[in-house]
């Protein structure tokens, strides 16, 4: 399904790491699409493979020990999976950019803001210093940094966490990429700052048309800003749906468990206990047989312990990886 509206199309992405105990597959057969100007969520708990998916797309998985394979990663008709590292470097920052979680550690402490936010321009364009400075200044205005001119020649430690994250976003957007991958961009921030940053990202999507892959563990953020959602568990996508379908009709038991276990800020304290998913996320080096979620699943059937379910379409692109939705009633 690569038509005019599809910007990114990932097929069968597999990322492995060599370890002492043999290869561990941290991303296993991930496929999804991102339409132009769409915001697509990757949600999951720690170790679900969501960040690794992002790093794999960006060509940022260290190799060795890592190895990334995919049937294809089509961005604008180019297959990123077939590019060598030089060709990838020329695209990174220009066509696709990434915003990292930690604005404290992912900025260079010994470079001024204008130097690092302008760096992608220095690499990808032949703009002169003055032109770069001008562009950075305008980008600072766009991302809502107050007194932007005064922030150009300061170092990261002189800015607050919120401003640093805005600067990170400015850096990601400076070459006007069509795709921005944001990995937990607000997790380290306070809630009022988070609200500002999320609003900013949505405004940029509306204004510039940047598509966003939003990686988060927070279903609240997913509900607030995503168009489509991919729920990840143990390296795989277990449910894929339009955001409304996902919240209205969660179809994978893991998604249901996640939704049930969030304390809702709109709901009053009840004496009732929070729903929790029993057990813990499996060790990727030692995955259970069959469905990876079955040891924690209340609805597990005999087949779930034996055979891995495929990601199957339930209706209109709403997909789930679960035997409960198998046409043969899991009797395969």
């Amino acid at each position, binding site marked *: 399904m690569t038509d005019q509206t599809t910007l990114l199309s990932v097929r069968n992405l597999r990322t492995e790491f060599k370890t002492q105990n043999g290869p561990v597959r941290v991303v296993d057969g991930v496929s999804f699409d991102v339409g132009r100007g769409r915001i697509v969520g990757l949600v999951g708990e720690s170790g679900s493979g969501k960040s690794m998916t992002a790093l794999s797309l960006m060509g940022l998985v260290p190799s060795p020990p890592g190895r990334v394979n995919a049937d294809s990663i089509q961005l604008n008709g180019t297959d990123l999976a077939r590019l060598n590292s030089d060709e990838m470097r020329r695209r990174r920052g220009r066509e696709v950019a990434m915003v990292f979680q930690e604005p404290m550690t992912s900025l260079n402490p010994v470079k001024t803001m204008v130097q690092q936010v302008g760096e992608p321009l220095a690499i990808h364009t032949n703009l002169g210093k003055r032109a770069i400075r001008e562009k950075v200044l305008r980008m600072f205005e766009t991302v809502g940094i107050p007194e932007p001119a005064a922030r150009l020649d300061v170092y990261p430690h002189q800015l607050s966490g919120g401003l640093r994250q805005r600067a990170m976003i400015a850096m990601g957007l400076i070459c006007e990429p069509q795709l921005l991958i944001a990995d937990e961009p607000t997790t380290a921030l306070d809630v009022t700052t988070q609200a500002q940053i999320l609003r900013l990202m949505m405004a940029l999507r509306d204004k510039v048309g940047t598509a966003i892959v939003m990686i988060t563990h927070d*279903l609240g953020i997913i509900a607030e800003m995503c168009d489509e959602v991919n729920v990840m568990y143990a390296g795989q996508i277990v449910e894929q749906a339009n955001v409304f379908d996902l919240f209205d009709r969660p179809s994978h038991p893991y998604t249901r468990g996640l939704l049930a276990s969030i304390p809702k800020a709109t709901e009053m304290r009840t004496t009732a206990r929070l729903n929790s998913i029993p057990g813990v996320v499996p060790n990727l080096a030692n995955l259970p047989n069959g469905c990876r979620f079955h040891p924690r699943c209340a609805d597990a059937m005999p087949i779930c312990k034996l055979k891995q379910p495929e990601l199957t379409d339930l209706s209109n692109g709403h997909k789930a990886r679960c035997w409960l939705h198998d046409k043969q009633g899991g009797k395969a």
Partner: protein
Amino acid sequence: MSEVLISTEGLSKHYPIGSGFFRSQRRVVRAVDGIDLEIRERETFALVGESGCGKTTLGRVMLRLIERTNGTVRYRGQDLHALDDSAMRAMRKKLQIVFQDPYASLNPRMRVKDILAEPLRAHGFGTEAEIEERCGELLDMVGLRRQLLRRYPHQFSGGQRQRIGIARALANSPEFVVCDEAVSALDVSIQAQVLNLLRDLQEQLKLTYLFITHDLSVVRQFADRVGVMFLGRMVEVGTTEEIFSNPRHPYTMFLISAVPRPDPHQRNRERPMLVGDIPSPMNLPSGCRFHTRCPYAQAICRSEEPSLSDHDGRAVACHFPLDR
């Protein structure tokens, strides 16, 4: 209503900041600045606010883990700062804390057994056999198998480690437990398990919690009362129900409205949003500390700091509390 277990009066903690070579006046950061608070037996009191608001410092000063600058902390009427070292040491059995980071707060070189036995030995719990038995009991209480006593922290997941941290806090049967961001580092499905555990333990052991967190969703489902802090001051105190359904301080209102809601059908709701950044605690604004970001600020807010006072049964520190 139950008895007041712990209370503070005018409690402050100021940190001096290194004065420059030529600077003669001493500057201070008012991390906690004149807090009056009462927590009743067996209640869960949540302390919320953004980073740097002083909530963690307040929790620690209340336990006398750090010394106060001014004010008093009373535990069952007893002034904690009037106690000498040995009396304070004995008192510590009753006052415990669960830390945020389950990776950093357990000694990686100690077995679970020794982690749990340390507070018991420190307070002369009994013979080694009794200590061993108590450690097993503690693991039972937090839902871990006794066989795990010989393991090291790295052999546990984050949620299990937090259970060990809770077991350690409970070793000497405390009455008052400060939970400092105790579930913040955990994944949501695990967070729910630990919150349920804390609630069960409160029931069983008649615990009183001071629950320090920045996560308002957790507060709403977990706390009886809530105190909202901003830059070292308490700006609003009320029951959880009141605070969430009818916030009176503008900051509380903005804080609540900023929380993302896990319901896409509500994404287009009207959402008032704060602008700007939190002012530097080293350079506090005059008057109300919130006035630089407050859309309702008037002249008096810039000159006079409002005190926490009663507005129809709610404690609010604002010249013009919201009325809705």
